[in-house]
């Protein structure tokens, strides 16, 4: 390992603002004092807490120049992105941006830099949205340890034509990284952003990430995360999306990697007319476990949310989707939908769905449902009748099943990239 890492980790971001340093110190104390959740807690039922034990990992050390260069070369991501940040073990290793971004007033910075240059702006939004589907312990862990990520601020009315992206690499073993993404989209703006999570090598690491999206009035944010950690990595990703009146958000997760991966996603429809689509496509094979917890929180009238989570399960893989729709008393005329679909390709795989509804308003349209099924034999025969082998037909039908989620993303070129990634992931099956 010694040739993979620099000997001494540089200290935490120098000259971080006072508020940040204090918050980190407080978070560290909270992390120490809070208990780990237990499976008796509602939002941790069926979960695998052992996989996420923070004590098994130490804060990641930076990689050597040579590895950084190699990772950079491997950081394909989305070729047509307007801007790219690449991190390895929570250190920025590359930054590239279309020059027009700055002239439009877009702030696109590594979090560690934004803390210095836009302290006030970051402070106003940094970890302000509480997540109620996870545990304060791991959020405190993140806040105490975070040192890298993306800060993206899109000013009023600026509508970006192509996606921006960040690539987060985890290298080594026994290392913990804390990727952070903070997006603030002001009134009437539009932006699409992709986080790519990748591993270098096969070491057992931990990722404890947070992404918070602030969607202003009539703004549009499409957030995509592509999780391709190696098959030893334990991951915990906490997302919150706060949507002001007339704003709309899509949050799409393509979950492919990790040994245990938990993703928590909370959509808060704060203003009237706010819209949220929560989408996830998961390929689970081997002994992988995916634990997904969601909340659709309707706090204003005339809001709309639609969740579609699909899991394809092979081997002895396990998935959990636990989703709650909450319609608060004032949120009349709410439409809230939740669909969980499991495609089970092995008798030993286990798909758990735990839907929930909490409706406190009138005139609400809500539906939720979870189904678990196998490959439809008529689809299989139809494909075989065209000459497609059984194995290829299985793969194609599975692709189609998950692709229905990707099809919901309007950004065509990015969607094609995701389809490629999914196709490659299914190649072995």
């Amino acid at each position: 390992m010694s040739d993979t890492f620099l000997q001494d980790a540089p200290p935490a971001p120098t000259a971080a603002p006072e508020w940040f340093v204090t918050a980190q110190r407080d978070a560290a104390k909270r992390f120490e004092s809070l208990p780990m959740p237990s499976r008796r807690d509602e939002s941790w039922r069926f979960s695998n807490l052992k996989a996420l034990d923070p004590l098994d990992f130490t804060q990641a050390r930076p990689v050597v120049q040579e590895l950084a260069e190699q990772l950079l070369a491997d950081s394909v991501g989305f070729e047509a992105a307007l801007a790219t940040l690449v991190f390895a073990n929570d250190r920025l290793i590359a930054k590239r941006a279309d020059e027009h971004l700055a002239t439009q007033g877009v702030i696109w910075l590594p979090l560690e830099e934004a803390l210095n240059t836009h302290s006030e702006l970051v402070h106003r939004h940094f970890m302000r949205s509480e997540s109620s589907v996870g545990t304060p312990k791991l959020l405190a862990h993140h806040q105490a340890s975070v040192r890298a990520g993306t800060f993206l601020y899109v000013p009023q009315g600026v509508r970006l034509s192509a996606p921006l992206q960040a690539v987060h690499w985890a290298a080594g073993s026994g290392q913990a990284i804390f990727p952070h993404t903070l997006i603030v989209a002001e009134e009437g703006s539009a932006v699409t952003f992709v986080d790519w999570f990748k591993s270098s090598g096969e070491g057992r690491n931990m990722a404890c990430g947070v992404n918070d999206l602030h969607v202003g009035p009539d703004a549009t944010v499409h957030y995509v995360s592509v999780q391709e950690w190696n098959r030893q990595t334990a991951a915990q990703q906490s997302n919150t999306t706060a949507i002001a009146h007339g704003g709309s958000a899509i949050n799409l997760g393509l979950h492919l990697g990790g040994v245990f991966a938990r993703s928590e996603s909370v959509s808060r429809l704060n203003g009237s007319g706010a819209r949220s689509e929560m989408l996830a496509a998961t390929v689970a094979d081997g002994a992988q476990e995916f634990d997904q917890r969601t909340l659709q929180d309707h706090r204003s009238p005339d809001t709309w949310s639609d969740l579609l989570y699909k899991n394809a399960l092979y081997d002895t893989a396990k998935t959990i989707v636990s989703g709650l729709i909450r319609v608060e008393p004032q949120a009349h005329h709410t439409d809230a939908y939740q669909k969980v679909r499991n495609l089970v390709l092995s008798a030993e795989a286990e798909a758990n769905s735990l839907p929930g509804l909490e409706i406190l308003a009138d005139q609400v349209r809500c539906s939720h449902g979870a189904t678990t099924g196998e490959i439809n034999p008529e689809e299989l025969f139809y494909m075989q009748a065209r000459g497609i082998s059984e194995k290829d037909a299985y793969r194609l039908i599975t692709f189609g099943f998950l692709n229905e989620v990707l099809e919901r993303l309007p950004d065509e070129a990015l969607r094609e990239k995701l389809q490629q990634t999914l196709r490659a992931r299914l190649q072995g099956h």
Partner: protein
Amino acid sequence: MSLVIHNLHARVAGGQEILRGLNLEVQKGSVHAIMGPNGSGKSTLSKVISGHPDYEVTSGEVLLDGVDVLAMEPDARARAGLFLAFQYPVEIPGVSNANFIRAALQARLKDGEELDAVDYYGDLYKEMDKLEIPRTFTSRSVNEGFSGGEKKRNEVLQMAMLKPAYAILDETDSGLDIDALKVVAAGVNALRSPSVGMLVITHYQRLLDYIAPDVVHVLVGGRIVRSAGPELAYELESKGYDWIKETLTEDAHAVELASV
């Protein structure tokens, strides 16, 4: 060179016999029609030939240019040159029509060979234009949300792209209005050639006005009970299937008397 069906008996696994000693030979270059009342076993025949797993062949054989296809998996049969245009085409969510047909063509290539994408789309668009299928259908999921007529046209499109040696068209006319029927028939006729044998299954004579068959067979109760030239279709149309059934009972009666 022909598709030979010899003394074919088949049933739904464990159930009653549906095909009860069916004989048929379709030569390459010819078009045979099968007509028959609902429930007579027409779709069952098409599915048994294609290898649908619901059916069990209890005896008989199906030979494709002399090769026994009953021992083959359905996909191998298709690659050997068999094509079935489904009476009820299946919807495949999330798989685009273009990708589906491409996968079917790719399956016919040797390992390591790749379909040329530009040529492929060129061919696909050409055939789609002939069938008056809008370009947008390439990116739509296979058959999903297609109207009845669109589904049938899509079957003929696949047939045009896959260029089978023997094609079975199961009620490709059902659910089509007259304009759509003409388009589909023109598509099928364009594929008629000395190197293709076709078995056109239909309930109505109407289709045969547009796809002129060389031979017409009548299927009743799991057997071919009459075979004749195209005039048989008209006779059936005017006299109805009951006529055939009556002559059959007479025949059966005659046979019974003869055997006494």
